């Protein structure tokens, strides 16, 4: 019996190991991945709320079109015992976004994905559904919702080649129906209708290409071999370049999707398998994890691609420099706080530059200028001088080895400047350490013109001052050379009467937006700019007893190179809603319901990593913790995208 039990346990374990999970279908091209482990938290989040998040924007336009109204994620057929993995990636040719998830009830799932039509699948045991540019791919109990967008730079390149090969010149493309374009037509709303008109059925691409960088000529040939992209229509005098471009777009989109499906479902290649760092991260017993492979972000950027072809030696050196540059993080939810810990990893070379950059002593003088009642403040301590020397030591050899006229010119310029310039004076003046505060809103007199009328309605213009609520900011940096900015200030005062020396501070009239005065304090190893009259006029030597508390100073000092603190209850009402989109305003309104403090700290930077910690103390109880998690995931997604 005991033997049987052991065999049974081993069998269960084997099945468990072999069973595919949602995280086993994250595409290789994903660069950013957010995994929400405890999606039970999300049960109470309504789908309508979910689709408002930025990370859902790419997918949501046709996905949730009213079929979600009043429903929660719990009613979407998603398996809450599996992770929900949101991914985003971009390479030189296309952009992907989507998420993978477990499926508990496929019928319930299609009450949400009701716009998706079943497609013929080229892959065995894989169900394929599409709704315009979104695709839902189902294998067993796993769903992959994915959108693949070829980059227009790449699409245009191929379309241009085809256009040119057919004997049309650049300007011909604008001739066709140019003046019939309906600028008022709502293409977003009617895009599906337009999409149907694309002759995509004429294009079939059957390509297996392992590289990210396609040869344009080869691709043009492949696309043309598979069918004519454009047929001259009877009665139409000119060809339609845009039909060709749309056809190329559709063909590439399908080709890229096929490539991803082949990798995921046939070849068994996925990001978790390919990257041990992600695999390890996914094992963490926390509410959520995130992953950003910055080395791939850098390598697949356009300048880097240029280097690969034109400056191979430099490309090799920079590739090595950015090797292993990844950001990994965990999201934890406690009784009254949400914590995100992020570890930025990098190789020795890049790490040695960061280590020198961040190896800077905290300048305690700045704390005198941070008021205890501030709404938000940050400090950032770096040593640009040391970082410059280290960068020079590491990057210059890479440049010197490159046999290129342009690079040689750059090397000469840098070498001569390095030899002739007084670097000590430069980096003593601006060391790189800065601090900033947001001190709420104050009434500031603003000059305006009003008209005064006499009894016969003749009018004259009169200048008056009326007070307006203006946000109060202070921004300053540490310096060991107050004498150098002083030269600049003195000379500006000679040239312009709006620059006034008031002794311990300077006042510059109409400096900000040609309306608001700015004050400068240039003394005691600090250079400070502010629109806070109280600070400049009454407290040019600092706020004294009204500065931040000793406890806050200790926390600020103890943090690594960066520290930030926001009191949401004070700051939120002063955010710039006038300049936000409606969606952003709604998100802000949702946050406004919350209060509490957000704190960002960092560890000391080592040769291979720096850790950051973002803690959001709610200061109150909550009944929908999933919203907090999604808010944070969304914020990180926006920052890292």
């Amino acid at each position, binding site marked *: 019996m005991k033997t049987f039990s052991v065999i049974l346990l081993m069998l269960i374990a084997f099945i468990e190991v072999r069973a595919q999970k949602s995280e086993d279908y994250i595409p290789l091209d994903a660069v950013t991945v957010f995994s929400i482990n405890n999606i039970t938290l999300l049960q109470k989040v309504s789908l309508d709320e979910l689709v408002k998040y930025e990370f859902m924007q790419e997918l949501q336009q046709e996905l949730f079109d009213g079929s979600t109204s009043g429903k929660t994620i719990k009613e979407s057929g998603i398996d809450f015992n599996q992770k929900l993995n949101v991914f985003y990636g971009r390479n030189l040719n296309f952009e992907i976004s989507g998420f993978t998830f477990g499926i508990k009830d496929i019928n319930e799932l299609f009450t949400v994905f009701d716009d998706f039509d079943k497609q013929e699948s080229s892959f065995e045991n894989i169900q394929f559904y599409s709704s315009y540019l979104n695709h839902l791919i189902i294998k067993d109990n796993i769903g992959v919702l994915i959108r693949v967008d070829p980059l227009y730079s790449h699409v245009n390149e191929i379309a241009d080649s085809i256009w040119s090969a057919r004997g049309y010149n650049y300007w011909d493309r604008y001739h066709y129906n140019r003046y019939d374009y309906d600028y008022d037509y709502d293409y977003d709303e009617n895009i599906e209708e337009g999409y149907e008109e694309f002759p995509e059925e004429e294009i079939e691409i059957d390509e297996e290409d392992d590289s990210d960088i396609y040869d344009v000529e080869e691709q043009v040939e492949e696309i043309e071999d598979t069918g004519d992209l454009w047929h001259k229509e009877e009665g139409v005098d000119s060809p339609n370049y845009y039909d060709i471009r749309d056809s190329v777009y559709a063909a590439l989109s399908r080709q890229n999707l096929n490539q991803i499906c082949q990798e995921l479902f046939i070849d068994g290649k996925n990001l978790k398998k390919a990257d041990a760092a992600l695999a390890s991260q996914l094992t963490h017993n926390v509410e959520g994890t995130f992953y950003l492979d910055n080395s791939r972000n850098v390598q697949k950027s356009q300048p880097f691609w240029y280097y690969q072809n034109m400056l191979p030696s430099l490309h090799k050196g920079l590739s090595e420099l950015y090797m292993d540059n990844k950001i990994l993080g965990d999201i934890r939810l406690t009784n009254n706080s949400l914590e995100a810990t992020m570890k930025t990893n990098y190789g020795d070379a890049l790490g040695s530059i960061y280590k020198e950059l961040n190896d800077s002593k905290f300048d305690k003088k700045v704390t005198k200028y941070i008021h205890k009642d501030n709404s938000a403040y940050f400090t950032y301590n770096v040593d640009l001088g040391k970082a410059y020397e280290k960068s020079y030591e590491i990057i210059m050899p890479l440049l010197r080895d490159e046999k290129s006229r342009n690079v040689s010119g750059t090397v000469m310029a840098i070498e001569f400047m390095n030899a002739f310039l007084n670097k000590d004076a430069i980096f003593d003046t601006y060391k790189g350490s800065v601090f900033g505060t947001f001190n709420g809103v104050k009434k500031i007199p*603003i000059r305006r013109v009003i008209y005064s009328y006499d009894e*016969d309605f003749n009018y004259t213009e009169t200048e008056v001052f009326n007070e307006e609520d203006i946000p109060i900011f202070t921004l300053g940096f540490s310096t060991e050379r107050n004498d150098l900015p002083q030269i600049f200030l003195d000379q500006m005062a000679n040239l312009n009467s709006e620059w006034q020396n008031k002794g311990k501070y300077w006042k510059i009239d109409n400096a900000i937006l040609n309306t608001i005065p700015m004050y400068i304090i240039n003394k005691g190893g600090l250079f400070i*700019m502010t629109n806070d009259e109280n600070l400049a006029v009454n407290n040019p030597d600092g706020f004294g007893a009204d500065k931040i508390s000793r406890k806050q100073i200790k926390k600020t000092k103890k943090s690594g190179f960066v520290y930030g603190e926001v009191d949401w209850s004070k700051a939120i009402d002063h955010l710039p809603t006038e300049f936000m989109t409606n969606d952003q305003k709604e998100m802000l309104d949702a946050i406004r319901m919350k209060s509490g403090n957000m704190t960002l700290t960092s560890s000391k930077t080592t040769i291979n990593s720096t850790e950051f910690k973002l803690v959001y103390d709610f200061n109150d109880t909550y009944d929908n913790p999933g919203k907090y998690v999604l808010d944070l995931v969304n914020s990180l997604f926006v920052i890292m995208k």
Partner: protein
Amino acid sequence: MKPLRFFFFLAVLFSLSSCIEIIDDISLNDDGSGTLKYNINLSASKVKINSILALDSLDGKKVPSREEIQGRIDHFKDVFEKRPGISNVTISSDYNNYMFKLSCDFESVKLLQSAIKKTLQEEVKDDQKLLDENVNWMEWVNNSFVRSVPDFTIKKVSNLSDEEKELLKQGTYISITRFQRDVKEFTNSKAVLAKNKMAVMLKTNVYSLSQNPDLLENTIYLSPLKP
């Protein structure tokens, strides 16, 4: 000066209130000719305007530069002054206070109205339906002058968002009509007669005007011409 740019950016993001003041001042001679002065005073909104102009785009729409704004104004002037019956056109732009003043002489109210219509048609090519060729908002007949609000301004305002309409509530619209002889009577009860009895003023806020165009509708009757 990157920190300075950053500082500006913060102020851009956090700028607040706004309002507009418009003075529409027509002086009519007995022969039907006259002078139009149209002043737009945005000095109370200059923080906001400077903030917006510091941005490249806002809510997905490109923000024009000062040069582009001035270009449009110059173009308007070029087109307007070539219209028959219009002369001495001047437009002054004060970008410190955001005050814009148009002044011109006209041979008749009919020609003035036609010039405004044609020039606006030139300026808003993408929205020709906005301007109805047959609608008149000024009429000078014998001893009476009829004023109302051009239909296109109401159409434009109705397209604005609720937030933009809210801002218009803070704006004022002042309409002044001056004559060379005494005003006998006028139909709008909110209008005020000048002490010299030769001018009529109507004041309202821009939003109310958009909601109720009759607010500025006024028929002014003048005393008979002295032989």
